[in-house]
């Protein structure tokens, strides 16, 4: 079995996992929209919670994986680790986009404002920008060794940045508490809502895994083809 066959295999299995994730998401849609009760004070818009929060979780997972894999790359110098880190970054940008679009759409009816500079939204915004930068940087660097090294540097910097942005917003908030009319995330959710949320988190996690496998396989296939071309010359 050649390396190319192995990569194609990962792509296929990734497709299966993604398919399962999509089915799971469809089930979440049905459950959230039809079977979960509407929250009395916030209305239907509260249900955005069931897609917004899991997307945030998936985005955070994705960038943490990129950061950790970046450290491993600098240690082990295996280019496949770099490809996996980059795959996770791209998937993270996709989920980050979901979070940054659903956030304001949820915020407007619930908090009365499109954007609140709270810790989670602010961190996600800047992390999103950083990882867009990460992908742009990869796009303009042609040498694979340099690309891998530089990407790892950004990945590690990003990992360390997250707690600082959180702290910044926290400090700002404790000294300037924002007038929040309704606080949407309830620590004690009624059972039906909790189950929907957890189902959604599971679906998004499966989607993350599927996307990661597919994106990694794609990168591997491309790299193998490039190597084959280079050695043929």
């Amino acid at each position, binding site marked *: 079995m050649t390396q190319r066959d192995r990569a194609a295999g990962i792509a296929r299995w990734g497709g299966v996992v993604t398919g399962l994730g999509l089915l799971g998401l469809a089930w979440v849609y049905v459950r959230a929209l039809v079977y979960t009760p509407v929250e009395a004070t916030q209305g239907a818009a509260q249900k955005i919670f069931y897609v917004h929060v899991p997307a945030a979780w998936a985005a955070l997972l994705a960038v943490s994986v990129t950061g950790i894999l970046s450290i491993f790359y600098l240690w082990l110098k295996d280019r496949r680790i770099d490809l996996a880190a980059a795959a996770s970054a791209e998937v993270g940008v996709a989920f980050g986009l979901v979070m940054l679009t659903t956030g304001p759409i949820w915020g407007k009816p619930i908090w009365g404002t499109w954007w609140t500079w709270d810790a989670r939204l602010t961190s996600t915004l800047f992390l999103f920008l950083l990882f867009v*930068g990460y992908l742009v940087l990869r796009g303009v*660097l042609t040498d694979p060794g340099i690309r891998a090294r530089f990407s790892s540097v950004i990945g590690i910097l990003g990992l*360390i940045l997250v707690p600082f942005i959180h702290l910044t917003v926290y400090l700002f908030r404790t000294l300037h508490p924002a007038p929040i009319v309704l606080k949407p995330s309830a620590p004690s959710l009624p059972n039906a809502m909790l189950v929907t949320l957890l189902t959604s988190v599971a679906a998004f996690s499966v989607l993350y895994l599927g996307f990661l496998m597919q994106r990694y396989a794609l990168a591997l296939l491309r790299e193998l083809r490039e190597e084959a071309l280079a050695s043929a010359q």
Partner: protein
Amino acid sequence: MRALLRAAWHIAVKDVAIEWRTKTAFASGLVFAVLVLAVLFFSRDPTAVASSDIAPGALWVTFTFAAMLGLNRAFLLERELHGLDGILLTPVPRAAIFWGKFGANLVFVGAIEAISLPLFVVFYDVPIWMRFGELVLVIAMATVAFVAVGTLLSAMAVRTRYAELMLPLLLLPFLVPPLVGGVQLTARLLEGRPLSDLSGWLKLIAAFDLAFVSLSALLFQVVIEE
């Protein structure tokens, strides 16, 4: 250790000397400072917003531009003179290159800040003399943060064709904690709050400096290795 410091010093002096000869980015830094301070002053409704309300923000936007200009200058130099290749051929300890560049960038950004500050006092009529020492400390701490990460990122950006675009794009997220901290601290200091009240922000910027200066120095070597 002494060899490291000496090498870093020479690299820093070389960079500053080259810039001093032309002073181009220095001049544009000055023009930017005046522009930013003026625009922000005129952008408000004078009957509703006191100049002292927007003053801290105006000052820090100016400093951020200064930092960007300073860092841009650093790699224009590298590009034109292929300076880094030359240094890498010598037996200079790699760590010295970071500290040298970091030092030169600090001098450059610091110089623009030193000129912007009196302009700021004059245009906004801000009484900084009572808190001058503390203000300088805050400015220094935040500047160290931007310049450390900026030095690392510009070493990467210079290897791409779009250096002037890549640097701000990559640097932006790292500016948030020191910038917000700097503005908050400046505002509180000018209001007359004692330093002890501001320990939260001070600790944040100090921790950021510690983490990112060491991380930048470490990762710089990864970036310039061949």
